[in-house]
């Protein structure tokens, strides 16, 4: 068979077949059998094309969505940081409010004039024996003013320089205060040990003292007014002398102080002050 003639014959047959198929399809408006067969063969390819086209058309949307999400994420991160900063600020304000509420409660419970001061320096090197405090504008301190916290006695002012004042803590080895047991009014002298604990001295052996007894100022030393809570008895030992050997734990956690209250100095009548000066050393 002549190849050229064969090619022409095949061509004519193919063209005639397709022409018949198209004309039949045009008249009856129905799917051709060949189309259905080819559809079956090419459907996987067609669906794949659709998927590819869908993926291609989704790319701009994906990029836009990704960009929008990145922007939204950035805004949310900024909002989160602001919220965290606000939360931290609220925590500080909540603590300050609690402190101020405690101060207010204390002021309402005491008749003494109270001034608030901020702790600006704590002497950690020597077991928290001294603090430096600073009062509000216009407030001036005096040597000898008692310093307290809402939970108990802190110490007394021992030096003043402008708005600043140095406070000797009750735990200082050189500090002393006249105190009494709240339960039975037995009096003694409380001294600091320099290590955080306090020692109650000159409490007679016959005095009834128990662990847990509340210790408060007796108002007999010319420095601290009566009734300021100092601490609780944490240990009672027999020294073998005339007095108990009593250890007192302060109620105030001196290592966490950031604000204190400064009371007015106890005014002692001048005649008594003179007799006290001539009669002996004040604690």
């Amino acid at each position, binding site marked *: 068979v002549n*190849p050229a003639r064969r090619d022409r014959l095949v061509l004519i047959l*193919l063209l005639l077949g*397709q022409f018949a*198929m*198209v004309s039949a399809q045009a008249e009856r408006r129905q799917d051709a059998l060949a189309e259905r067969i080819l*559809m079956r063969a090419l459907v996987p390819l067609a669906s794949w*094309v659709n998927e590819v*086209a869908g993926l291609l058309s989704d790319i701009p949307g994906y990029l836009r969505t990704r960009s929008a999400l990145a922007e939204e994420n950035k805004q949310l991160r900024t909002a989160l940081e602001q919220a965290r900063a606000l939360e931290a600020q609220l925590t500080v304000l909540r603590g300050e409010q609690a402190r101020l509420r405690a101060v207010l409660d204390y002021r309402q419970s005491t008749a003494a004039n109270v001034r608030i001061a901020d702790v600006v320096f704590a002497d950690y090197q020597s077991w928290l024996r001294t603090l430096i405090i600073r009062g509000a504008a216009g407030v001036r301190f005096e040597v000898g003013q008692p310093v307290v916290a809402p939970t108990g006695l802190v110490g007394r002012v021992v030096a003043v320089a402008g708005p600043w004042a140095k406070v000797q803590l009750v735990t200082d080895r050189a500090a002393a205060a006249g105190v009494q047991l709240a339960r039975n009014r037995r009096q003694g002298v409380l001294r600091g040990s320099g290590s955080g604990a306090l020692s109650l001295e000159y409490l007679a052996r016959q005095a009834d003292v128990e662990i847990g007894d509340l210790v408060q100022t007796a108002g007999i030393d010319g420095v601290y007014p009566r009734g300021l809570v100092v601490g609780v008895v944490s240990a009672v030992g027999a020294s073998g002398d005339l007095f108990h050997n009593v250890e007192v734990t302060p109620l105030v956690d001196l290592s966490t102080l950031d604000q204190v209250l400064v009371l007015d100095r106890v005014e002692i009548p001048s005649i008594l002050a003179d007799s006290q000066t001539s009669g002996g050393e004040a604690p």
Partner: protein
Amino acid sequence: MNPWPRLAVGLVLATLIRAGATALAPGGADLLDPFIAATIWIAVASRPLPAQTCGLVLGLAFDLFSGRPFGLGGFAGTLVGYLVARFAQHLLVRQPRTLILVFALAVAVQRATIALLEVLLMPDAVIPSWQRVALTIMATTALGIGWVRCEGWLTWRLAGWRRDRASRLRLD
């Protein structure tokens, strides 16, 4: 080269190009006909019988994705495949200008065949404007020329790689 692998490659590439064009420019995708470009690419390098068969398959694939009555593209593709293969048997069609002419004429023949069949068989046929036909011819010709250039570049790279590999084997 055997025309059947070319048919498979042409079918896949044309489908990809068609899908990409549809996704990027849905309104203008019809201006580019990668199936007839693939038909011509196969036909210039093969005999009439495989060329018209490839034209038939690619034309039917064109119908499948174009929305026209099924068989119009197959008819035109078969005719174009046969004519281009016959033309390539008598003339040297590897020259760039000749290739451009072959692609442009073949696309024009395909569009004219489809339009003629539509007029004959479809009572409500819409004949595209000559500007649109001209744009289709230019775009499809450019695609076909690019297709042939890519094939030439890949063939050249493959031959270079084979030469390099053969020289290394001799040295070893």
